[in-house]
């Protein structure tokens, strides 16, 4: 099936968030795709939206079978989590396990007032009861494919598929 | 019992015999080689086609672990190992528990060994009481009980004065003294050769000077006392050179090397393999080359096995805590053959190193096939290779750095006094 244009989808996502998201919501982007999107959203949505980044590798549930992935990045949250309104941002929402890990990590930093979830693309196939608050586009994708967001040198975002497990 | 060994290649280094010929045994002695004795009618004929028929091997150092160390090995198992290895005469060091410093212990050991009717056992008595290096033993009594020489095994005599007097006393009566050239202080608590491997692995080291300084001391004492000394287990290239020079100067000393030192060096320790925890330690490649050259040119008189069975518990320990030693009776022949093949040493010369040469040091009439000599014979297949695995060894000591390797030379039959004591 044809993938939507990433840039257009990002515009759609921002439109849905504008006016709905809290004025002082803090955006936390999940590396790497979610981080790029969080930065772009913070620039186009009015309000006081500081951006942080999260690598939930240490909280994943597949450590026992897959081990640590080689490049674990530093989680950087330059603001208080305690009592904050957080918008967790990811590129592709699938099983929901990555989001679960990120939420667990956020709670180790403090107790937020609320967490909302913004995703560029929801491809269904949930294995946990997790639903996005804001969605750019919904897709149906075969199980043997991964949906991947990439960023060109000039900053343009693009969605592609590749074989799962690649 | 009349036995004819037919079609074998008879090699007797002492008498310069090396030809395919029948060998005739009667009344426990060598009756003839080549032409049958008059009226010959054998009770048994052994077909030795393709095999070598040589004197039973003489091993100058094999620990039988009795008395005192029966949990490591027993006389029964080790004597079986000896004949399985073609060894018909062996000398055992005095470091039993208690050490062989009392005639009663020596007699008991000889009696036990004799009753097994296998190899001849020649005990080496302790030079000092308890091997403590302080008081000399009753060498006269011990010699009467059967000791062929006196030694300290691995125990040092740190007081040079005591060593001098022990050698003087031995010289008075013509006793031989066998000594390990190792300076106790320089060796310290060392467990490996002072080279690259010990440096990398952080092992306490024994410098080559521990051997060379001890050799210099021993040579000086030999010149002074006139005692007959045999040096046990050379390990350094410098040591070989010193012995060569001393012999050239007319000093009456002999020396040996342990079979495993001909083949292994420090790098074989790998990641702390305790099978390579040996005394003396495995040294560098140049030392190994010098030992091999020394054995070939006669500077080193003979090879021994230094057979030391150690149980698994003794080896499954960190390197520095592991018990030193390797099993060796069944590897004496193969390791000697391997050296000879690699360095192109003719078979009779190689076999001399484990038959006539050690017999000469022991001062016994073994290690040759002269007419009238006891029929102690080893029949082996020089072309057969076998893999060193625990099941292939009769010794209770399965501790060998050669585990898993293929070695040449399979003993097919061993006779002692004309009796077949091993058939493989």
């Amino acid at each position: 099936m044809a993938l939507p244009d990433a840039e257009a989808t990002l515009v759609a996502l921002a439109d849905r968030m504008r006016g709905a998201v809290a004025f002082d919501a803090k955006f936390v982007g999940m590396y790497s795709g979610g981080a790029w999107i969080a930065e772009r959203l913070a620039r186009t949505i009015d309000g006081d939206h500081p951006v942080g980044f999260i690598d939930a590798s240490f909280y994943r549930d597949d450590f026992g079978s897959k081990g640590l992935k080689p490049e674990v990045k530093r989680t950087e949250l330059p603001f208080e989590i305690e009592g904050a309104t957080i918008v967790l941002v990811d590129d592709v929402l699938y099983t929901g396990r990555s989001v679960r890990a990120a939420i667990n990590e956020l709670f180790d930093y403090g107790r937020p007032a609320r967490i909302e979830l913004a995703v560029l693309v929801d491809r269904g196939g949930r294995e946990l009861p997790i639903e996005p608050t804001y969605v750019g586009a919904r897709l149906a994708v075969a199980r043997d494919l991964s949906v991947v967001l990439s960023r060109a040198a000039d900053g343009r975002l693009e969605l592609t598929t590749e074989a799962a497990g690649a | 019992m009349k036995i004819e060994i037919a079609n074998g290649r008879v090699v007797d280094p002492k008498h310069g015999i090396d030809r395919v010929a029948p060998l005739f045994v009667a009344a426990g002695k060598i009756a003839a080689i080549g032409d049958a004795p008059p009226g010959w009618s054998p009770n048994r004929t052994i077909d030795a086609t393709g095999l070598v028929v040589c004197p039973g091997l003489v091993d100058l150092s094999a620990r039988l672990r009795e008395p005192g160390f029966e949990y490591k090995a027993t006389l029964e198992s080790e004597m079986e190992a000896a004949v399985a290895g073609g060894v018909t005469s062996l000398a055992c060091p005095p470091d039993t528990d208690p050490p062989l410093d009392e005639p009663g212990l020596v007699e008991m050991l000889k009696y036990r060994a004799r009753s097994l009717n296998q190899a001849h056992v020649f005990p080496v008595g302790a030079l000092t009481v308890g091997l403590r290096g302080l008081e000399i033993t009753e060498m006269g009594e011990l010699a009467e009980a059967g000791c062929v020489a006196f030694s300290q095994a691995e125990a040092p005599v740190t007081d040079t004065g005591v060593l001098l007097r022990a050698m003087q006393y031995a010289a008075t009566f013509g006793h031989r003294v066998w000594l390990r050239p190792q300076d106790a202080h320089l060796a310290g608590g060392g467990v490996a050769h002072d080279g690259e491997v010990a440096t990398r692995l952080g092992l306490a080291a024994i410098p080559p000077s521990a051997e060379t300084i001890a050799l210099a001391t021993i040579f000086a004492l030999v010149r002074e006392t006139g005692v007959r000394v045999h040096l046990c287990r050379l390990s350094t290239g410098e040591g070989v050179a010193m012995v060569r020079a001393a012999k050239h100067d007319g000093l009456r000393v002999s020396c040996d090397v342990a079979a495993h030192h001909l083949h292994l060096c420090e790098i074989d320790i790998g990641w702390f393999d305790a099978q390579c925890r040996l005394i003396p330690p495995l040294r560098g490649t140049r030392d190994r080359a010098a030992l091999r050259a020394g054995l070939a040119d006669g500077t080193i008189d003979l090879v021994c096995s230094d057979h030391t069975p150690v149980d698994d518990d003794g080896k499954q320990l960190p390197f520095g805590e592991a018990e030193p030693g390797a099993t060796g009776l069944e590897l004496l022949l193969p390791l000697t053959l391997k050296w000879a093949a690699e360095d192109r040493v003719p078979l009779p010369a190689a076999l001399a190193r484990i038959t006539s040469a050690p017999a000469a040091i022991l001062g016994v009439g073994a290690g040759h096939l002269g007419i009238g000599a006891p029929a102690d014979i080893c029949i082996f297949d020089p072309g057969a290779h076998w893999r060193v695995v625990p099941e292939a060894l009769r010794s209770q000591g399965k501790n060998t750095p050669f585990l898993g390797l293929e070695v040449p030379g399979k003993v097919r039959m061993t006779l002692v006094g004309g009796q077949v004591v091993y058939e493989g």
Partner: protein
Amino acid sequence: MRNPQLNAAGELTHLLTLEGLPAEVIVRILDTAVPFASIAERDVKKVPLLRGRSVFNLFFENSTRTRTTFEIAAKRLSADVINLNIGVSSTSKGETLLDTVDNLVAMNADMFVVRHSQSGAPHLIAAHLDRTGNGHVHVVNAGDGRHAHPTQGLLDLFTIRHYKKEFRRLTVAIVGDVLHSRVARSLIHGLTTLGVPEVRAIGPKTLLPTAVHALGVHVHHDMREGLKGCDVIVMLRLQSERMKGALLPSAGEYFKHYGLTAEKLAYAKPDAIVMHPGPMNRGIEIDSAVADGERSVILPQVTFGIAVRMAVMSMLAGG
């Protein structure tokens, strides 16, 4: 020789020594330690990576410092930690070293952190585990005799990388009792593997191994000469036993020739860093003023030590 630390897929299954570890593996450990270092700055200093796993600290040689840092590291990974101080010799209890190991494996140990006074003890344990079908139990060497202290070597490398960024242009000096030092051996292997062009060993002949050149170092007996142009100075601890073994006459003479003072430090580069694995003997190998001075990174070493050990344990336990 097969490297006993790596499995068939080239992944780390034991950490026994830095010798023979490929550079990529060492760099991966250092990279993995970076995010772990930031966890120390949070309120909740735990991540759930090793939850449900049992880490046994098997210390046959006493060391509260090292044991504590391993304990902290394991607990920050949410592992269960059991401390066993077996004292000087397990054989004094009649039980062999490997028997003790077998008993603990039967209690579902996932990882052993082993410190032993004999070089090669962790290798023995790892080989035994692999041979008895317990290859899933990982061994971390916390210091064996004079042989290796790989986590210390790694945290020293991490510290150097943190302050100096690039290894390939450095001159590093290791000062003191290299002969008896597992810290020195591990660091030297790590530095040469990562391409440090000049590693120097500075000390008296009695405290340097005979074949020290085999390790790939340049030897200096004159400390001032040896410190010229150095970017990193690692001071080794001098143990009091060395004065008894006829290796050194006195602590005073040692300090005069080989103690790090501001005057000697001036021979190194102006931005050189001073390291020490600890615990320090002030006034014997290092002057207090230098130990507490601005070039000293001795305290950060300790913090990095926890992150590095967390990285090692999680790399071993994963997959």
